[in-house]
């Protein structure tokens, strides 16, 4: 494999129902940074049926070039035709980097393609940068420059690893949704659009889709929630949980509570976190007006980030909080909600 032949940063532009997924735009944002460091350009790979019209949107978000594979076989996602199309592009165009969203599609497509084109794939990356491998020069080993360094959490977030793919091309990564930044869309930007037809010959690997069932969302189990806004006795009254609900809504989170709140009859038991309630492990856990009895902490200490707000500076919750704020929740929480609302709107 002549590694020098491989050029350019390529992004799998995931679309579902002919709508570009947000992750694709995030990847384009990141790809632009990487392409700049490598002095190359960004190509989006757009696969689907009747999707050509989406190329402009990809251009607005940073694609210099869009390769379109438009075929009825690609109408709904199926592993084989998509893997065939993507690996055909890779074999034809020889990109040095291929980024795929770590979605239910990307985490199926990525490995199948990486195995087909015989390269490494790093899953669920949260940081991508260009650098040297090995990071520090080691006597007797050639230090390679301009490598894609892919950082990812493992062990349910217990460890962080930085991975390189120094001797194979392309360097492939799936990337977690919501981590990379989209660029401000450049209105009217155009990309070079190239159609590509790898040819599709259905075989037994072309599975048959019998039915597509779109989900109806029901109430979120607190154990599945990514963000929990949890209230304790310190919230004061059941009515006052409104300020927690507002905060949860802004963040797309869910409200949960401590045992004291359930015992007081303010909230139902299925929202209770703790030893006698549920054990939760969200990305962010807000402990608001919760003192942090052992029983409670046992049910939430595995959360990725714990933010505690309590007026008692000796509250044990501060022993497990990443960010502890000593203060009045009634003053802080509503302002926090407003501020986050503004920050999120600004980011869109």
């Amino acid at each position, binding site marked *: 494999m002549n590694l020098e032949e491989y050029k350019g940063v390529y992004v799998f532009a995931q679309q579902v129902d002919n709508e570009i997924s947000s992750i694709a735009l995030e990847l384009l944002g990141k790809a632009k940074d990487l392409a700049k460091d490598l002095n190359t350009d960004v190509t989006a790979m757009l696969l689907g049926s009747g999707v050509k019209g989406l190329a402009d949107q990809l251009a607005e978000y940073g694609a210099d070039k869009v390769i379109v594979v438009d075929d009825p076989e690609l109408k709904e996602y199926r592993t084989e035709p998509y893997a065939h199309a993507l690996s055909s592009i890779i074999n034809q165009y020889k990109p040095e980097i291929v980024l795929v969203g770590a979605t239910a599609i990307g985490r199926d497509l990525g490995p199948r393609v990486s195995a087909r084109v015989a390269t490494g794939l790093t899953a669920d990356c949260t940081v991508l940068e260009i650098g040297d491998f090995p990071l520090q020069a080691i006597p007797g080993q050639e230090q390679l420059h301009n490598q894609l360094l892919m950082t990812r959490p493992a062990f349910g977030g217990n460890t962080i690893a930085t991975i390189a793919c120094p001797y194979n091309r392309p360097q492939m990564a799936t990337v977690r949704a919501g981590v990379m930044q989209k660029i401000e869309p450049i209105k009217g930007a155009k990309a070079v659009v190239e159609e590509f037809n790898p040819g599709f010959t259905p075989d037994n690997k072309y599975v048959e889709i019998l039915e597509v069932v779109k989900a109806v969302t029901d109430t979120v189990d607190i154990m599945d929630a990514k963000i929990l806004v949890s209230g304790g006795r310190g919230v004061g009254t059941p009515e006052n949980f409104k300020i927690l609900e507002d905060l949860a809504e802004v963040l797309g989170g869910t409200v949960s509570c401590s*045992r004291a709140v359930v015992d007081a009859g303010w909230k139902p038991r299925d929202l209770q976190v703790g030893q*006698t309630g549920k054990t939760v492990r969200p990305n962010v856990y807000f402990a608001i007006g919760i003192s942090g009895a*052992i*029983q409670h*902490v046992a049910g939430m200490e595995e959360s990725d980030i714990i933010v505690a707000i309590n007026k008692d500076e000796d509250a*044990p919750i501060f022993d497990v909080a990443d960010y502890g704020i000593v203060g009045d929740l009634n003053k802080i929480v509503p302002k926090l909600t407003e501020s986050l609302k503004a920050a999120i709107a600004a980011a869109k």
Partner: protein
Amino acid sequence: MDFTLSKEHEMVRSLFKEFAEKEVKPLAQEVDETETFPRATVEKMAKNGFLGIPVPKEYGGQGCDPLTYAMCVEELSKVCGTTGVIVSAHTSLCCDPIQTYGTEEQKQKYLIPLAKGEKLGAFGLTEPGAGTDAQGQQTKAVLDGDEWVLNGSKCFITNGKEADVYVIFAITGVVEKRGRLSKEISAFIVEKGTPGFTFGTKENKMGIRGSSTYELIFTDCRIPKDNLLGQKGKGFAIAMHTLDGGRIGIAAQALGLAEGALETTIEYVKERKQFGRAIGAFQNTQFQLADMATKVEAAKMLVYKAAMKKAEYATNPKVSYSTEAAMAKLYAAEVAMEVTTKAVQLHGGYGYIREYDVERMMRDAKITEIYEGTSEVQRMVISGALLK
């Protein structure tokens, strides 16, 4: 002498532990608080073979050794004393005598569904006037044609109203022994639903509150002649032999309670802070824990040794495990009481609160010094063997 558990026993322990943590522990507090028999848990245990662990496979059991069974009761009792005793009473006091003394027909009819957990078992020996003095029985069985007619009552019966099959003891006559008249006791298998067999008072207990403890009442209760278990007149021996095995189960329950309290306390003292330090940093706490752990370990050795002795008995019926079982039960029960009491003390005020498990464990522990032979009875059994 080998103090290392086999890989099989290690794995079987991890199974019981996982089951106890996932299925039993979450219900322990509620079961105690509401005095609810954990029927759903019993069904799950049945499905997983926990209700016939030492019963041979050909009789629907798991074909495991008594140690495996003791470990099951131990792990369940670590998180819930109620669940531990349900399994113990069912297995040791009902499956075991039918397996040991039952006819082939009785085994087919009763042991198989019991071991599969389709039916739950109980054991009725104790009467209001016959506790430690088991000879003081009043319940009578009279043969009338093809049926035994039972009259009398039994009290403090574990799995009382929830069981389906009961091993019941009753007087079947009077015999002369060395010039003195003594009661002749026999064992019977009685099914729930038999006319004349009803339930009396439900006991409101200090501990193991989810176990169903009832009075059983027999009023002209007629059972088939074939439901005599073992030989007529051998009831007392059957009862004593059965209790030898039962004591291993209760010893395992006591051991589990002590271990559960110890583990809970170790976690607690690492977290609980007083005077700016975790209370585990204080030497008093450390020394208390050291004593507790040492006693628990000693109890475990006795319990496992008794279980292994019973395994020996399975291949050689001449082996007696009576003394080992009595020692294990005596010691494990007293350790359970001591360790749970210390655990409450180390928890301070919280230890006295219902929300904290050690409070329940201390209440649960007390019964292990009383049932299936009080500690005093165990001392009688042990000293009796010494002075034989």
